[in-house]
């Protein structure tokens, strides 16, 4: 079964979604990521979805869930590189992902994580 790799970069975890998400894969990612956060004591998670072109309400809710779970585990989540079509779809589905922080690209996302982490001390 295919798997989404989770890379550790210093204090942060980097997840790049490069395949079409289906529900099983999303559930597996949720499991892996929460385990990784507690194992590595990461302070931030960066999810790059720039190659993701199709979303449904399940994937949208999963992104919100991952953010909420990470927060419980004391890690900030930033979703970066969302495509316009994906953003429109999520809004039309009524999913505005209120708890999720966003950035235009990986650079901006990293900056955001660092600044919020520095602020936290």
């Amino acid at each position, binding site marked *: 079964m295919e798997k989404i790799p989770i890379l550790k970069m210093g204090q942060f975890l980097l997840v790049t979604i490069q395949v079409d998400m289906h529900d099983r894969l999303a559930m597996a990612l949720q499991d892996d990521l929460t385990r990784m956060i507690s194992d590595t004591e990461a302070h931030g998670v960066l999810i790059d979805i720039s190659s993701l072109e199709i979303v449904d309400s399940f994937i949208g809710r999963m992104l919100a869930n991952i953010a909420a779970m990470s927060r419980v585990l004391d890690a900030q989540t930033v*979703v*970066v*590189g*969302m*495509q*316009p079509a*994906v*953003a*429109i779809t*999520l*809004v*039309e589905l009524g999913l*505005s*992902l209120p708890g999720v922080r*966003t*950035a*235009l*690209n990986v650079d*901006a*996302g990293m900056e955001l994580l660092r600044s919020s982490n520095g602020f936290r001390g």
Partner: protein
Amino acid sequence: MSTVPVDQRSSLGSIITQNREEILAEWLREMSGATRRSDLIKESDLRSQCTQFLSLMQSAIESGGTNFQSNAWDGVRNLLGEISKSRAQQGFTPTETAMFVLSFKRPIFRQIRQIHKSDVDNIVSETWTATELIDAMGVYTMEIYQKSREEVIRRQQEELLELSTPVVKLWDGILALPIIGTLDSARTQVVMESLLQAIVQTNSRVAIIDITGVPTVDTIVAQHLLKTVTAARLMGAECIISGVRPQIAQTIVHLGINLLDVTTKATLSAAFQVALDKAGLVLTRQTKS
């Protein structure tokens, strides 16, 4: 019309075959009257159109009778469609376009009278067949004319839609989107798509939506605006709404629309100031020494 006797059917065809030049000349004379537009179409073009029409009509009558709806008339219908489309684009009036077909009546009627001489029954029935046929062609011509005009209008509407939603780059990383006119669902879609596309292309973190040119804001418009703001936020860009006029501020509050999560400013310049702050930029006046 499908029950036209064989002898009548052939008579109309043979009239055209035998007196082609005469009919053509008289027809052109008819058209050169009040409805001819020598400024829009050349004499030779008109003549070739008429000649083509006559030969197509002749073969149509020979193979399929006088039923304009039958397949034998496909050629004539295509020609009429082309003529009427080109006239709609060239700027002919509906009357002028219709007269191309309708002015064909007089020459045909004259030929019918000449051939049947004192046979009143035949004259009446032939005239009726011809009238019905020409009327059908006239109506068809007008239908196509109308359709091509509607197409022109539709195309202009689309162009207007695209023209009315320009995305302007104010500074490195700062976009502005001045909206002029009422926001409906179709326009919001275009606005949203072009804004999000521009955010990706220019890598902008702040977008200013200026609604100075929006005449009224009701719940639907506000909802559309909020959707756009949310979509931009999902992509990692922040939106500022500017150009909120006093009346619109009152309306928004009276309607109970919640814009608390969105930064709103009265003018575009105030919004630009906020955008500069967010980008960490400062504007200073140059001191002249």
